[in-house]
């Protein structure tokens, strides 16, 4: 099967300019990610892995280089055009869940739909909630949920627009290991169903659930390899039982 390139970064660099002090964060990064991949970006804090994810996720602009998304150069898009791409092509899962407080699961999941150009189809939200196994919590408020449930809501929210890619920034960082495994299981299932997953983590263990690990240090890619002995969250769970 021919591999379809989703993300292609060519000589990307990123500097943060703060009160006349320029801090280079990413240097000359070259990277290509294909449809259906499950990539873990690893590195210690301050390595630039989050910045890389923000750039790939259209949240941040690059300082130099070119970014091709689905073969199209998107390096020079304006904020509104980037917002449109975020709304239609990608979903985000954050370490801190970032749910709307005192808002129902349903309304949280529906959030990206209200910013969509197309008409809201409420069934999409229900479908996404069912896919993370929280249909029984549909009308619960976000603050009535456990950490694991919150992150599952966040995944449902990331799925609701049926995006090509899901970006997960330390999705298990605020969770106990059992909930963490559940989240990884959902991500692996999604990947099995064809979604491209890009995971940012500093934990080797979490990264080993991916198919490919990219290591970053001081703004440079220092490693990019396939995971030889991949962990499967579903089987781990069975084992612990």
């Amino acid at each position, binding site marked *: 099967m021919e591999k379809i390139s989703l993300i292609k970064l060519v000589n990307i660099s990123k500097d943060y300019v703060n009160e006349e002090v320029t801090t280079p964060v990413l240097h000359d990064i070259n990277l290509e990610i294909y449809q259906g991949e499950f990539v873990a970006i690893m590195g210690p804090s301050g390595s630039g892995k989050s910045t890389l994810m923000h750039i790939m996720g259209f949240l941040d602009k690059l300082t130099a280089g070119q970014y091709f998304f689905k073969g199209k150069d998107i390096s020079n898009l304006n904020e509104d055009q980037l917002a*449109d791409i975020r709304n239609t092509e990608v979903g985000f899962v954050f370490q801190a869940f970032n749910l709307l407080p005192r808002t129902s699961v349903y309304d949280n999941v529906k959030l990206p739909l209200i910013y969509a150009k197309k008409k809201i189809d409420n069934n999409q939200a229900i479908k996404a909630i069912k896919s993370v196994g929280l249909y029984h919590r549909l009308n619960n408020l976000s603050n009535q949920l456990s950490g694991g449930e919150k992150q599952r809501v966040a995944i449902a929210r990331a799925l609701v627009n049926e995006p090509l890619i899901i970006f997960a920034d330390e999705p298990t960082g605020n969770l106990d290991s059992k909930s963490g495994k559940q989240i990884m299981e959902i991500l692996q299932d999604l990947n099995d169903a064809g979604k491209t997953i890009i995971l940012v983590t500093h934990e080797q263990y979490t990264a080993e659930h991916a198919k490919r690990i990219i290591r970053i240090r001081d703004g440079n890619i220092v490693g990019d390899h396939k995971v030889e002995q991949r962990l499967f969250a579903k089987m781990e769970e069975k084992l612990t039982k």
Partner: protein
Amino acid sequence: MQISSLFKISYTALLAKKSRTFLTMLGIIIGISSVIIIMSVGAGAQSLIVNQIKSTGSNLIAIFPGKSEEKGPPPSVMGIVNTKLKNEDLIALRDKGRVPHIVAVTGYNRGVGSVTWRDQEIDGNFVGVSSDYPLVEDAQVDVGRFFTEEENNSLVRVAILGSKAKEDLFSDQDALGQMIKIKKVAFSVIGVMPARGTKGFQNQDNLIFIPGKTAQKLLLGINYVSLARVKVDDEANIDQTLEDIAATLREEHKIDNPVDDDFTMRSQRDALNMLLAVTDALKFFLTAIAAISLIVGGVGIMNIMLVAVSERTREIGLRKAVGAKNDIILTQFLIEAVIITLIGGLAGVIFGSGLAILIALVARYLGYSWDLVISINSIFLATSISVIIGLIFGLYPAQRAAKLNPIEALHYE
């Protein structure tokens, strides 16, 4: 993106902080209701004053002794006694050959003194007038009759009682034909006026009317009138009559140059316009002061919206991450500010109108002819002003929200 979704977001956010939303709104409620109350009470007070002027009769010209500036008050208002207006002047004004449009002329001499009937004694207000008085003031006697000009000229001692004065002295007994004493001078009661209420800022029912010359000679010891009023046949002839009166009085007083005039004339219309100018200025001044409280309320809204933007930084970051564009975020926060000011404005209109109605009811209960004026214009104006305040004072916080960097906002602690 549907605008209804934005309204729902704003409404949910405002409901989440009910007491804060209400307190913020309170500034606008107070501001708008002050504006409504002041506009309404101002208009009511204005109507009260105007009605007082109008109630003295239409087509009237008042003549005061002494000269005054064009727009200034006549000297008698300042307590200056001027003796230049004589009974002879009134006779001259009655001459149709000289002032053709005058229908009736009366002088006025006011005085106070004890009034007694048998062992009843009251502090009475007597007023010496001419026999034309009922014609000039559109006031006919209720019982008995008014005196004639012949009686006036022959210094007869007769009195017509105001309804209240009659009641105070005689309660429900018949007053006609009774002898009363005013400042120890005996008068025969020949008439009683009907209840007329307050006209020209004077309660007419306390007054005791006696012939002008009798009042001057027997009670006051003077030979001039302190005020004269003439009635003109038609409002269209007022300007002509003003000229005729001036010419006649100058002739009588042997004045060649109008600069040396020793009298002042005021038509009803002049008096009304002068008062309207004063009360309008007062009304606008007070409304402007009330409007300042709206600005204070607006600053309060800006303050709270800035707090809200800062509190909800992560939420804003998330909304941007899932595709909300800057102008959508801007609109959302503007809608929040406008919801506060619009609801506050409407509540202010209701509260202010309620108070204005209450004030009008109390004023009417106290016997003032008070018009309740709450114009659709003022309600429309107040509502638009509240929306505009929301837009103006909400703009800066909304721009702050819209300009937030999504990454920084997402990781804001």
